[in-house]
């Protein structure tokens, strides 16, 4: 039975996982605009501790607060990555000295493997649109957070594909607006999300 791609937001016990509530709709709109992927008009919220999380090829996770996985969440995240899922984690603090970054990267290292820099010629950056690396965000350029423009995304690869993708660029702030507001932008800043989805579905 052919059904559609569902953009899933990961719900975890310890932090504010719902800090970017408009992002899923915006990304769904972007997917619909640029691709013919059959996409569900609304996203899903799936607890990391629930086995249903294994049904989604791409899981989006964000927040500001410390990330401490429960045993069930840790077990599921490991299974998810082992089974070929792509967990995309974005630091909503855009701060590498922030507690989300420290705790989330530590949890990923503990649960899956330590994160390493993803080269800017990785297939992710040409999965749909061509990018020379991760697109910058206005929050980076404005000097907020850690006042850094991050040159690379971080990742854990399994079997030559990305299992966990970690961003300090704060796409959660950059993409967290109503899709109808996209018309006010001269350049759509959500195109990179298409690469994420296409990579998750084809890699």
């Amino acid at each position: 039975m052919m059904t559609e791609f569902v953009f899933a937001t990961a719900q975890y016990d310890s932090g504010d996982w719902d800090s970017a509530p408009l992002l899923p709709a915006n990304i769904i709109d972007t997917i619909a605009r640029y691709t013919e992927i059959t996409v569900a008009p609304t996203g899903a919220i799936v607890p990391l501790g629930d086995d249903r999380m294994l049904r989604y090829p791409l899981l989006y996770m964000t927040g500001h607060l410390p990330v401490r996985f429960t045993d069930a969440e840790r077990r599921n995240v490991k299974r998810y990555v082992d089974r070929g899922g792509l967990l995309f984690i974005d630091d909503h603090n855009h701060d590498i000295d922030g507690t989300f970054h420290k705790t989330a990267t530590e949890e990923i290292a503990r649960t899956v493997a330590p994160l390493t820099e993803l080269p800017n010629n990785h297939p992710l950056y040409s999965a749909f649109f061509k990018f020379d690396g991760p697109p910058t965000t206005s929050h980076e350029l404005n000097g907020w957070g850690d006042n850094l423009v991050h040159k690379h995304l971080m990742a854990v690869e399994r079997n030559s594909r990305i299992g966990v993708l970690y961003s300090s660029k704060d796409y959660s702030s950059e993409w967290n607006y109503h899709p109808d507001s996209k018309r006010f932008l001269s350049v759509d800043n959500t195109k990179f999300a298409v690469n994420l989805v296409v990579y998750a579905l084809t890699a």
Partner: protein
Amino acid sequence: MTQLRAVRIVLAIGTVFRAIAWGLGAALTLLVGAALIDLATPLPLGTRHVILAVAALSAAAVAASMAWRDRGVFSLERVAMWIEERVPSLEYTLVTAVETGNASYVAGAKTDRWRPIAIRRAGRALRTPIAVIVGAFVILFVMPGGAVARMTLPHAGDSLDRASVARGTRASRLSPLVAEVVPPRYSGEKTTTLDQPRDIRALVGSALAMSGRGDATGIAARIGKDSVVATQRGDRWSIALPIGSKPFAIRLTDRAFERIVAVEPVLDASPSVVLTAPAHDSVLRAPTGRIPLAASATDDFGLVSASFEYIVSSGEGETFKFKSGVLGAVKPTGKRASLASSLSIDALELKPGDVVHVRAVARDANDVSGPGIGVSETRTIRIARADEYDSVAVDAAGPADEEKSVVSERMLIMLAEALERRRPSLRRDTLVGESRRIAADQKRLRRTVGDVVFTRLGGDPSGEEHTGDDSPTRGKTMEEMLARADSATNQSADPIDFEGGESPVVAVNKPLLEAYNAMWSASTELEVGEPGRALPHMRRALAAIEKARKAERLYLRGAPPAVVVDVSKARLKGKDKGATSTRRALSPADSAAHSRLERFANIVDLVQRDQRAAIDSLLLLRIDALSDEPVFASALSDAADAMRKGKAADASNALTRARRALAGTQVARDSLARWSIVP
């Protein structure tokens, strides 16, 4: 008689020495025999240990048996008889003297000859065993160097000491091979030596030295694309390698000879930390007091530090501030540690809404690939905000309204059922009177349910003074409520108008609205004296109330704005015109598994043609799969072992297990459909 006792002493000493000499001779003969066998065919270390023990036991047994056989020398009568045999001129006077205890019988005898006779006899008895001992020593002396030591002091790594009977310069210098593994200093483990190693398991950071006999020229070790040449140490070659964190295979080469050794690193496990206090997350009404902290930590090699860490997060929305600290730090020296401290809430100067995250952290002594850091589960302690005191639930709360409704509705059903059973015996006016009393209770209960729903929808019924259903305000509200209930329970064609759609609150209230509606129908039937027709509605109301009671708890905090994307609109005409690059299929996620399956199939083919090469290939495939396919790697190891031992059936079983393990991990994704399931 004094001379007789002296003879007895001489004979006894001789007997003891002879027993010892025979025991020693037996042990040496055994060792010589084993050493000769070892020269021809190397004996395993365990066998040599057993032979050494057997030699010692045989020495003791032979010596004891000899001593037992000649125990007669301790008897004066036997010694007297022995002397009588050698000096017939005594004519049994000596025996008579011993038996009677009267020395006068031998007063005139020449006793000075007795002792020399005994000494000569003892000396003759020692000749044979001493000859055996000397012979054994001569053989041991002429044996090649190291051969004797291998038998007398067997130890791991002495295969290099073994001298081969026939060893030409064309022979491989890769055998015998000895590996010495020196664990990192922090582990406190002892150095391990392995003879003829095939698989080496060693702690990450260990130093591995492989050595063999002969000239180092031309001997090298290849690890992947890297190559290390051997160095000369005396009459041996040696190659030193560090052990990293990933498994690898060493290909040792000597001219056309090759030998493969698999190295499996053992990771130093991070400390295991358990936070025992606080036992669970808490919400505090006021930011005061002290919270006791307790934890325990264990490590496989040793801990160097342990402490509690806390993070205080303040703020909300996009603005958060954090501060962190360490408490109760200790520096344990063993493999176990206990931590105890307390967290002063006053000192942290917390404000309502602040959250304290506490956990215990321990570090091990790993200075090579670590330190390994173990952390416990995190407990959170939140300070309640002023507006959420109701949810802090410090005091016991009364039963929820839904609970009251359940009890009342059940009572009404029982009353209605009882009335229905008595119906044949009642007059019509009595039946209607009793039925209307139940109807009044049903209406009252319905109002209670209505209040619950009304409160959830944002109303405030508690401040209103209800005098009955006739109140205009109440009536209007109830009319609206009924309309909503009708719609929510699909009993009306008119949709609920909640400004553009059904809100989550209405969705949550659906069961109660259904109960509300069913109660209306039930009270109508009861009003006209028809309790039998009212019962189905009452039971439906009860089921709906129970459904509401059992409904999953909803966390509305996480409910995002309901934005439903109009996909068709976003796509305009549905054309895919945004692509600026050519899409290409990436390699499948399970390419590694496919590759392994192909290699495995090739190895299985190779087994029939070249078993030795197949074993080496299995070893290499095992190293490749060790980190992410441990079951598969284990099966390969078993197969290689079985093939080395010539156990074909075991090898087949192990290969079957390996194939199943590999096939079981494959994930076939032929389309997106397997992923895109809407829950």
